[in-house]
């Protein structure tokens, strides 16, 4: 359970591409694929645990998720977690796939399911053409077949088809999409920006493996304001990076 002293012990995690993270034991153990090694105490050894199938930026992202959901969760309201999840997954489709694959390989079922729901939610808001374009799916149906399909669906069991027009084919949400995609791309650039900065710092510092990139838990951040936590962590992380340069 998060909070007991053993759970809060630090373990070292490394990635194949040179990433290195120090996190709480409970966070590391939440990645079921390496939980045996964590339990066996391998994270406290010199070389730490080599986390397979994941690159540094993706593991950083996942550790952030686990930090909130494993360490912070007991002191956060459910709505705070929901808002965090929403912000957390507001990334490019590419990065989303990387997170999903990593969550699958690391056996983090809750994150895997969350990303799958997110991919589905991204599709639900779009017309059929938009789905095909965004997710790179070829259009195999002739115009005739599409006409037959997209005539208004009378009814199905279980779900309400909200639109009166049933499933829409037309790209009538271009402007909306441009707005959201712009937001998403901006976020990605930011993330990649911070990632590149980290690369730079690591090279400079050489083999310092004690870098803690904004995944340490915070005392006193238990009031449930997730935005504050994120901002605080971001600032602390940046401060540490500046100090170590």
């Amino acid at each position, binding site marked *: 359970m998060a909070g007991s002293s053993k759970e809060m012990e630090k373990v070292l995690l490394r990635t194949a591409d040179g990433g290195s993270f120090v996190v709480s034991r409970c966070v590391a153990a939440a990645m079921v694929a390496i939980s045996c090694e964590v339990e066996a105490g391998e994270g406290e050894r010199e070389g730490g645990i080599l986390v397979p199938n*994941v690159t540094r930026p993706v593991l950083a992202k996942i550790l952030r998720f686990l930090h909130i959901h494993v360490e912070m969760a007991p002191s956060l309201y459910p709505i705070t977690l929901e808002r965090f999840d929403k912000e957390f997954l507001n990334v490019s489709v590419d990065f989303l796939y990387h997170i999903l694959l990593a969550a699958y390989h690391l056996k983090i079922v809750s994150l895997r399911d969350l990303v799958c729901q997110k991919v589905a939610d991204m599709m*639900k808001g779009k017309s059929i053409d938009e789905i095909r374009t965004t997710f790179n799916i*070829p259009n195999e149906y002739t115009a005739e077949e599409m006409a037959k399909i997209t005539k208004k669906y009378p009814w*199905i*069991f*279980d779900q309400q088809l909200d639109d009166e027009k049933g499933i829409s084919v037309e790209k009538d949400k271009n402007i909306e999409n441009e707005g959201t*995609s712009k937001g998403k791309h901006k976020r990605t650039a930011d993330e990649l920006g911070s990632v590149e900065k980290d690369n730079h710092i690591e090279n400079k510092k050489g083999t310092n493996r004690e870098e803690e990139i904004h995944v340490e838990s915070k005392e006193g951040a238990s009031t449930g304001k997730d935005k504050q936590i994120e901002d605080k962590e971001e600032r602390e992380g940046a401060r540490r990076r500046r100090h170590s340069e």
Partner: protein
Amino acid sequence: MAASATSSESSSSSKRARIGSHLDHETPPRRKRAKEEEEEEEEEEEYQSLIPGLPDHLAQLCLAHLPPPLIFAVCRSWRRLLYAPSFPPFLSLYALLYADDEPNAVAFACFDPVAAAWVDLPPPPTPLLQQLPNPNPNSPNLGVLIRHPSFLSRRLPLQSVAAAGHLAVLAGSTAELLPALPRPLVFRPHPGPPRWLLGPAPPLGPRRWCAAGAAPGGGGVFLASGVGPRPHDPALARSAALWHPRDGAWAPLPPLRDGRFSRDAAEAVGARGKLCMVNLRGRGPKQGAVLDLRRRAWEPMPPGMLAGWSGPVAAAAGDDDDDDAEAAMYVVDEGAGALRAYDWGGDRWETLLDAPELLRGAAQVAAGGGRVCVVTGCGGAVLVVDVSSSSPEPGTPTPPPRTWVVEPPPGKRVLAVHVLPRMGRPES
């Protein structure tokens, strides 16, 4: 793929910064890679991955959240997935049909609401049919008597039940006025390939008619009372039993107090831990009984429930006890032509839809997936009523529920309908 991620992300980040780049015609690196992989794969085999960039088993998890009509429309591999045995099945409308010109030959078909098309069920295999008294061994249809030449104005009952994901045909009569089904004829659409099987013979023998229904919370097929080969059998008229398709035998239930429930084919409706039935179809004075499955005891039917039981009744077969706790029961008042829902707290029936021109003379009803499906008089159409709407603001009038009409295949009429998962198909 993971190893090259960082470099490709930083090189594509400059391209990605442009507005709406996912709508570009120029192919960014991710898509180029996926396309090359696809082309390679196409050379080996005609394989289309569900979501390029993700392995299929993860893509499946994503697609499972989408509405079936959307999955149906995007591409062929998605459509195949929709019908794959491993994919959560959407509900469909199963029907027992008969032809105008051949009323005694019963056929089975399923209306797939996503494809908006009727699909015939695969015929029961010959070895199964041979165990039933079938006057026409060459026909895949079930040879039971619906219209007797001497009683043209009356339809003899053929009783079927949807329970625990199976369709079970339980009771009917032959031309010689004997039980047509020595053992229940059962169809399982899902999981795995659709298959027919014969269930175990009911205790005390097969029935020409009985009280039949689905036990609540996915408990299986309930059968009680009725008439067998002999017109007068008091023990049979009082008996009751339960069969879950995974079991090999019927489990006996406490018998009824007397044989009054044997006079007519009755629906036994399972909801909220109880099985409710009456001893006369349609309007007219009747008696009711309720079996409380937890206490395993019969009790009288609440007076309000009995008073409003003026036509075919159905409850949505929940999968488990949690679903069942909120189960709803519906009646079609065949005289007034109204659909009503039972108010468990107030012991009264609340009208949901007044539609005399459609619902008068309704023959049978099934419920499931937020819909109530009514076989209108003469079996010429099925009225599908949406009963899933959320409650409106207090004070505002409730709008009437949405309805749709499903017509049977040409030349056919509907005997009965049931709500069950769609059949699995490898290709569509």
